[in-house]
């Protein structure tokens, strides 16, 4: 596997109030190969390799699921929203077509 795949950054607002709807910005390093690109030197096709499944769990509840195709940019950046009504961990899981699973958990503590 090429290095640097699956590096994740999740950004939350600095302060979270109880019941507030917050934006969660996520970034993951991944090549997102479409399978249509060719290696210029060898003229061989670069096999498809992309994330096709994203899930977000708040506590143990699934709150967001996304099906991606090859049309999502490399190093996918995604923003989704969440109503912060409890103190619980937020786990985001990415899965790619070669069986790679990447996940990161952040704690959400509303005050």
């Amino acid at each position, binding site marked *: 596997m090429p290095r640097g795949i699956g590096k994740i950054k999740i950004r939350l607002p600095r302060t979270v109030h109880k019941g507030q709807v917050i934006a969660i910005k996520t970034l993951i390093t991944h090549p997102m190969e479409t399978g*249509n690109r060719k290696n210029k030197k060898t003229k061989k096709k670069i096999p498809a390799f992309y994330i096709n499944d994203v899930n977000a769990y708040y506590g143990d509840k699934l*709150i967001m699921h996304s099906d991606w*195709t*090859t*049309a999502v940019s490399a190093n996918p950046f995604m923003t989704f929203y969440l*109503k912060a009504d409890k103190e619980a961990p937020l786990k985001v899981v990415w899965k790619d077509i070669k069986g790679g699973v990447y996940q990161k958990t952040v704690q959400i503590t509303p005050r």
Partner: protein
Amino acid sequence: MKGNDFSHSRREFLKKTGLASAAILSFSALSSIIPVGGSSGWLGARDAEAAAEKGEDIKEVLKSTFGSRRIKMAKVNMKVPIIAENGAVVPISISSDLPMDKGNYVKKIYIFVDHNPHPLVASTDLTPASGKAAFSLRMKMRKTSPVRAILETSNGTLYGSTKTVKVTIGGCGG
């Protein structure tokens, strides 16, 4: 009698050609739907190659995902650049004021790019816990194309929005 015979055969002829053309239509519809429905088919390199050369028709894709349901062009706010200098990274953000209550919420957000080999970019399932019907992503665009965002609520109503994004190729910076 002769006249009758003639009209009879003519009627049959019409019937037969009608049937034949219907069969051809349904076949072509099926063959274009198959790569959409079987997403696992995309994984096969040959399938992907064939699909990429042909490209999928946006009308067929919409039909296979939404059937004949009407899409109301309202209540969806889509933010995309008018001109994207780099087709590999086009930011898109979708939001809506539609309620996110328990019985009535936005269930799905679809993003389509008409002139991409596979028009569907992403489909996102939301829950009332999301608090807000909004989502954003960065996507790839092969060339200048209309971009569609379609929202499906839990009671099955569809809302949509379309904007055209111009993709400039080469580093001239539009």
